[in-house]
């Protein structure tokens, strides 16, 4: 066990911190889930990219700096510590990209990854459909083969697409084998949202921001991949035809695991919570009861940070967390809710006023729902980690 950072890692942290402190927009950007806010965020994403901080753990050729997973953790810690903006590119960078690294052809990697890190291509998820949420295998959107035209024709409807109204690409599953059921016969498509036949309708999230979209696909043509950028710009298939489920599971595992929810994020929230508690204390308003709740939440944030250190150790040494990533998802999503709940308790009567903690609370409440509801995660833990019988 070695819980110290190396000299090189400390130097990396200093460099990241210095750059972030000098460059993070002040005052904070508006929410990235509105049209105006999204545009402001794009500027920030491109600043980040130009300085080489957009995707630190990626190869330099794709806009990264070949950083280790440890350095990525450090960067995330510094990113959230300084209160830098929410990453509106995160669904591409943290979810799609790992699957492109795993399943994409070299040409696909060379095409999509640099454009993603440079925030040229902005990706949203197309997982859910009106009748396929937790039950992802129930997708009905179709991909029909058109041999004459040399490609696939997509039709159907995707929903709950985060920031779908502001992105220009979508990734998701389509049923390519009409005879198939459930997990079989699905293909993982990448779809440009400016293609003919695509309609995007944004709608309001709990906090009122237009953070969700419905995406309607009406005979959207995706040409066969000939390895040229011009074709890949028009979309494509990740992995093999009819084998999309495996690719999707890899993406889902990224969503549950630590890559989307680095501990730095919750440690930063826990720090803000401690600041709030200290402020209440100096106002003579911090009861012992609330101090205890703050402490409990703080300990949980520490536990999450340590758990992820153990995760990263495993990954660095070639051991896959597998189904255990459901533990991460359960813990961070409940932790995030708890941190905000305690903050609202500290705010007392002011907890009904719009402010960072109420907005954060509403966002936190989505944690136990998206990326596979926590009910699904508990099933996975019970069946695949503990070994309880499926039926």
């Amino acid at each position: 066990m070695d819980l110290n950072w190396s000299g090189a890692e400390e130097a990396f942290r200093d460099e990241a911190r210095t750059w972030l402190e000098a460059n993070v927009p002040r005052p904070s950007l508006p929410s990235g889930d509105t049209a105006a806010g999204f545009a402001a965020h794009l500027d920030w994403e491109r600043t980040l990219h130009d300085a080489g901080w957009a995707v630190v753990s990626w190869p330099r050729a794709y806009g990264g700096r070949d950083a280790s997973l440890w350095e990525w953790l450090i960067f995330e810690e510094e990113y959230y510590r300084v209160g830098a903006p929410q990453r509106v590119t995160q669904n591409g960078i943290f979810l799609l990209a790992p699957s492109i690294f795993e399943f994409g052809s070299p040409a696909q990697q060379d095409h999509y990854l640099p454009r993603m890190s440079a925030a040229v291509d902005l990706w949203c998820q197309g997982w859910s459909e009106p009748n396929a949420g937790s039950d992802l295998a129930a997708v009905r959107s179709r991909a029909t083969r058109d041999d004459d035209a040399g490609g696939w024709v997509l039709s159907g409807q995707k929903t709950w697409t985060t920031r779908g109204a502001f992105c220009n690409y979508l990734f998701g599953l389509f049923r390519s084998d009409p005879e198939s059921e459930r997990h079989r016969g699905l293909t993982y498509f990448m779809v440009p949202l400016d293609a003919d036949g695509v309609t995007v309708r944004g709608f309001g999230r709990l906090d009122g921001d237009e953070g969700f979209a419905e995406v309607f696909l009406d005979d959207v043509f995706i040409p066969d991949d000939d390895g040229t950028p011009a074709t890949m710009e028009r979309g494509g298939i990740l992995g093999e035809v009819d084998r999309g489920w495996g690719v999707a599971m890899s993406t889902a595992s990224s969503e549950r695991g630590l890559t989307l929810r680095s501990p730095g994020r919750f440690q930063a929230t826990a720090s803000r919570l401690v600041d709030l508690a200290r402020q209440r204390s100096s106002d003579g308003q911090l009861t012992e009861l609330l101090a205890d709740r703050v402490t409990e939440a703080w300990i949980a944030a520490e536990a999450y940070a340590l758990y992820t250190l153990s995760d990263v150790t495993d990954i660095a040494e070639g051991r896959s967390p597998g189904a255990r990533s459901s533990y991460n998802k359960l813990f961070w999503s409940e932790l995030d809710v708890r941190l905000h709940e305690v903050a609202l308790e500290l705010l007392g009567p002011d907890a009904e006023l719009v402010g960072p903690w109420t907005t954060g609370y509403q966002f936190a409440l989505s944690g136990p729902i998206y990326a596979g509801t926590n009910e699904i995660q508990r099933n996975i833990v019970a069946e695949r980690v503990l070994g309880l019988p499926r039926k």
Partner: protein
Amino acid sequence: MRFALTDEQQEFRDAVRSLLADTCAPDDVRAAWADATLAGGGPGGGDGRVRRAWSALGEMGVLGLCVPEDHGGLGGTDEDLVPLLIEVGRAGLPDPVSSTAGVVVAALRDHAAPGVAATWLPRVAGGEVAIGVGFEGAGTVPAAASLDAFLLSDRDELHLVERTGVELEPLETVDGARHLARVRWTPSEATLLAGGTDDLREGFGPVNETFDRAALGAAAVLAGLSRRMLDMAVQYAGERQQFGVPIGSFQAIKHQLADASLAVEFAEPLVLRAANSLALGDPGAPAHVSMAKAAISDAADGAARASLQVHGAIGYTVEYDLHLYMKRAWALAVRHGDAAFHRKRVRTAVLGV
């Protein structure tokens, strides 16, 4: 001993439920929001009021329920009104029913000079005025800009201040139908309604009783909001199919809703008992109110959490109705004392520390 509503109380309650179902549908609540987008649609430009429901309640006698008969009311008590406030909660009606028909009427009836009472009580009973209540400290009042007058506390004095006597600083709340404002005003002889007579140890006197009644009103509305959220979740869970079955057939969904409804089921009797105690001036009333507000605040938070989780992503959108009730529940759970505040009052009464 009989712990149940009387037949008349039940009939009145059922009539109010049905009236509000007609006059305060989700789209009416939505229209009470100023910002149509935030509410998930509707015309926008609302002021925290659903006037057709308010008028109907006036016509039905709800607003004058606790006004003495000689002032044009029905001479009812907190025990009569509280079941109706539960219905106000179930409908998500944002209007100041609790403050106008409950808190203010009781203060006028029990503590005001006869002339003041005679001026205001008939107007309340006639549905002509809407009055809010605010306490020193927070000093905030919902639907403030629409009100005719304000019942406000200053130390152990109660003041009744007309709209022209206050300045309002609007506050943005999570529930856009709240239209909360901070009230700035100056106490004067002219505004003084009653005062100087609070018995702090016992919790009686004009300000204490007004606070308790306001807290109980919030508790009653929370009970109704909780029922509404749970009903919506039960209905949705029975319809929404995943994995080839309604999600309500999964034990994880069943047990979440069973637990959330259990908490509401056992908090509601505390609310009804507190109404009885307040009506009778029972010495235990302050502690009873606090038990009720503590329990239902937690139960409402739990109902909101369970209902949202059961709904999944659709509950997370403003186009769906759930958020209209959930955000109100969040607001009222911390209004007039959150659960911890009220447990502390109970603690003092029970443990003496």
